[in-house]
């Protein structure tokens, strides 16, 4: 109903960075028109007054800090490396093109006057950008290629003002840019799960067939907004191809592009309502009806509405056994438990199905259900339980071929900026024409120390990544800088397709070898 104002025609919009990120279309899948001004923390509004006099340049960078003192030694996954992903979305959606207009400046001025109860807004600075750059942002962003897998503690991108009058702009865009912690963290956590699955799949089946469909995204309902769903689900698709979070595909198609028509796939599946709507005494009828509706494609059926074990033993194992045996490897029945302790439930379901249906042993000596029946565990799956389940299955001689996983909250929501210690810090300023390397180094927490000076990222002859500080990367001997300019003065100058992103992030041979040691 309010469509007029939010769906691309936004009078003002919820978000926008330079002034208030005014007039930003707030619909996550909406049009890219009208941007910025509201997209910034209130306090940044007042920062232009706070830099030293005669500052002409501010240079900041983003990293996933390495934790030198690890308080949570028990954490099983270390996340040594991160997948860089998601900058292109932010640039396209919020920073490129004319993001400052006369109206936006005026509106921002009024909003901030109310908000601070004072005139603190830098109207003059924004008018300068409007007049000199036609509302395009005079900043330069250099970043590692999207999809790159980079060890923690290295610079991932840098931001610098390109006009001496607009030194304050660098950190104005911080709030919006720091939100890249989210796609980076989802992609990184999803990739760590891919490594676990790869290891156990290889060990229990001898191949990596089907790996890309082993972890399905169930997270749409569990995230905090539609926009988050789109960003997070697209980050999972960097590593996998199974998703129910449609919004992620839309983000990829719109902001990255793929050679395939869609980057993610799904299969028909039941939910509790489509089972319980038949009544408690008709669970069998519900099951039968649904598998008959989808005879030639895989179909997943949630079977714990009343009693998962009875459903597996009596309904699937006896009443409907004939129907299931008629299905093919291309159209298996996928049984879905959805409650209880994940490992115990999976093992018990496999055990019951293994008694009712003929098992085979694969080349590695692990048990495999007939190809027309599989299991998907989509409840309580996070990176730790995933590890426990595949480990438990292996111990009980079950091949990982038998199972796929679904993950929702743990994949897309149960993450914070602290998991990978994402931070954006100023490291270099020019004042009175002199460059100064700056850093913070709080006495109370050495982990919060920041890097100094202008930064560059390089590979050493042995293949390791190294961040050079204080402009040392300018020297030829260190080879080329892996940071490429992606944004300059309002224009996106380099883009990546989603296929490139996936290729950069794929599991390397050397990683697989390490995993299988």
């Amino acid at each position, binding site marked *: *109903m309010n469509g007029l104002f939010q769906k691309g025609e936004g*009078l*003002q919009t919820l*978000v926008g960075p330079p002034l208030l990120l005014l007039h930003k279309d707030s619909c996550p899948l909406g049009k890219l028109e009208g941007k910025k001004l509201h997209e910034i923390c209130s306090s940044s509004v007042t920062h232009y007054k706070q830099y*030293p006099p005669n500052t002409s340049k501010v240079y900041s960078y983003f990293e996933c800090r390495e934790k030198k003192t690890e308080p949570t030694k028990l954490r099983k996954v270390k996340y040594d490396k991160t997948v860089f992903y998601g900058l292109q979305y932010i640039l396209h959606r919020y920073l490129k093109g004319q993001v400052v207009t006369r109206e936006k400046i005026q509106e921002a001025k009024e909003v901030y006057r109310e*908000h601070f109860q004072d005139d603190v807004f830098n109207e003059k600075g924004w008018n300068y950008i409007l007049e000199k750059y036609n509302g395009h942002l005079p900043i330069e962003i250099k970043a590692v290629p999207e999809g790159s897998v980079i060890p923690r503690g290295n610079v991932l991108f840098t931001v610098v003002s390109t006009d001496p009058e607009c030194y304050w702009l660098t950190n104005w865009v911080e709030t919006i840019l*720091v939100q890249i912690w989210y796609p980076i963290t989802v992609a990184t956590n999803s990739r760590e799960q891919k490594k676990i699955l790869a290891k156990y799949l290889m060990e229990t089946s001898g191949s990596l067939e089907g790996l890309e469909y082993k972890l399905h995204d169930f997270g749409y309902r569990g995230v905090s907004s539609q926009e988050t769903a789109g960003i997070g689900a697209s980050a999972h698709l960097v590593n996998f191809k199974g998703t129910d979070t449609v919004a992620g595909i839309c983000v990829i198609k719109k902001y990255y592009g793929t050679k395939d028509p869609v980057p993610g796939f799904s299969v028909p599946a039941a939910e509790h309502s*489509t089972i319980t709507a038949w009544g408690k005494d008709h669970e069998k009828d519900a099951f039968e009806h649904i598998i008959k509706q989808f005879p030639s494609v895989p179909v997943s059926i949630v079977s714990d*509405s009343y009693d998962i074990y009875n459903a597996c033993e009596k309904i699937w194992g006896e009443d409907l056994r004939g129907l299931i045996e008629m299905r093919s490897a291309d159209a298996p029945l996928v049984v879905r438990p959805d409650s209880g302790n994940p490992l115990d439930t999976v093992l018990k379901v496999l055990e019951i199905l293994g008694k009712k249906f003929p098992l085979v042993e694969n080349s590695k000596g692990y048990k495999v259900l007939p190809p027309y029946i599989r299991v998907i565990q989509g409840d309580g799956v996070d990176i730790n339980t995933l590890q426990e389940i595949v480990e438990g299955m292996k111990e009980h001689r079950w091949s990982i071929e038998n199972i796929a996983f679904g993950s929702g909250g743990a994949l897309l929501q149960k993450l914070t900026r602290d998991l990978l210690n994402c931070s954006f810090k100023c490291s270099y300023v020019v004042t009175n024409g002199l460059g100064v390397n700056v850093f913070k180094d709080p006495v109370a927490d050495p982990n919060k120390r920041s890097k100094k000076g202008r930064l560059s990222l390089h590979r050493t002859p042995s293949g390791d990544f190294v961040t050079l500080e204080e402009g040392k990367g300018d020297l030829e001997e260190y080879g080329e800088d892996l940071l490429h300019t992606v944004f300059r003065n309002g224009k996106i100058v380099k883009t990546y397709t989603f296929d490139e992103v996936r290729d950069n992030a794929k599991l390397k041979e050397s990683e697989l070898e390490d995993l299988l040691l």
Partner: protein
Amino acid sequence: MSPPTFASPNVGQRLFHTCSLTPPISTPLFLILDDATYPCAPSHTQYTEVIAFHYVLSWHTRKVLKRRLSRLVSRGSERIHTGAKRHCFAFTLSSMMAAQDFNFLLATDSYKITHYKQYPPNISKVYSYFECRHKKGGQYNEVVFFGLQYLLKKYLAGRVVTEEKIQEAKVFYQMHFKQSVFDEEGWRKVLEKYDGRLPIRIKAVPEGKIIPRGNVLFTVENTDPDFFWLTNYIETMLLQMWYPITVATISREFKKILAKHLKATSGSLEGLDLKLHDFGYRGVSSQESAALGGAAHLVNFCSTDTVAGLLMAQRYYACPMAGFSIPAAEHSTIISWGKSREKDAFECLLDQFPSGPVAVVSDSYDIFKACKHIWGDKLKERVMERSEDSALIIRPDSGDPAETLIEVIKILEECFGCSQNSVGYKVLPSYLRIIQGDGIDLNSINEILEKLSDEGWSAENVFFGCGSALLQKINRDTLNCAFKCSYVETNGKGMDVYKQPVTDPSKGSKRGRLCLRRNSDGFIETVERGAGKPHEDMLVTVFENGTILQEYTLDEIRKAAQLWEEDVSPSEHNKEDDTSLEIHQKHIINGVH
């Protein structure tokens, strides 16, 4: 000029009166006021008149509005009325409510696309409900209901289905499932029969209400037997309600803790609304989440840096300015002066913001030295020149929050002295305060406040900032939010349905049609199996057949979500049973304003 109230359904006429605008020929259906939309005459669904009434925003904004409206009008609406005052507009446009870019058909879990084939034959109604399930030993006994109005306005109201969207979805799902499973005909019927509006009814608890866990919060059902599959199609979207509910609930728990300590150590609740500042913008997962979470915090407080939340409150909850902030430094503005010039950076801040309060992050190198040698010595006089209205607010930002804060406050006491308040606690001079914005969550804030009062310090001395614990470190399981089907009609007969997994009894769901009532003992309870009496039902129909029927302003929501006296009395802070909450006629002892 203060906004008119919207108590009566025929609000349109009154607004016309207020702004001396000649009403258009037909009765308007909606009003747009500061981007919030108000229904005028819910029964007149055949009208498509829209009135935009806009007076809070700037002249420039009004110009933009006018231009945009003109553009819309030229795209196919019939008429534009411009009022006597230049900021009043009325116009008609049948398709203007349609989501223009957002495809509602693509905003659900993939598998939902296949569900229309899975329900029993001859099913004609699916009725589902949302609750925050009760968990034994759960941390939060009651929840704040907030955020549905945003979802309805942004994604569900109006003409959300168009032929183009059906075509887009059809192609999309063909590729996504590698087969045809999309119910093209079903959706076309929505388009033909209802002009693309959703034949759905949603009944909900009024926003801002405090409801004990384990009760129904809203119900969803199809209003036309042909569209039984639609109820749960929108589950995915509606279940995202967990987020604003959880933020508002957590933020209110913060408020309870702060109120208790503030009352005990200062004798009043003055300034409570500004005690917890939202620092979460950068730590959330997207701009939209920032807006939604930021607005949910504003249900309980008036203090935020998350500008997106203010705009949401303005746009969707009719609150022109819901929260305030003050100038504040960040590390870059300090360290860009160089390590040896921290004092100059601090001094610059005092110079730049002489009249209002200013917050200065002081831990770039050594928070303790900064307090002792810079604030407490070199700039001491400059600090002492300031007043209560222009206080210097020192911000530590690293280390153990409680220990750092205590040490900082002791250093400041040595340098600036302190006085005793009426209840015997120490207070720094009024020109000097502290804000702790690092490492704050419900546990640490309580610990900090306890340590402060143990050492004789009043909670008046400190403000808190909270980022990810408020807006990000929460998930759907924090309050066990669930959406479940409880009732269906098949072959004309109603049946109560439920799930009850043997593997986890806590996942059991409610049965039948539900009613939320306050029983004769004053407790809020959910009546199942259709046994509730309509006149007792606290659930209000907010949405029907594409139209929003009931709206709430942030002011109303804030009133409904106020703390009760019991929340603040120290003895009852850790309530063992949630019954004390629902006593009738509790005294409201604080307001948001």
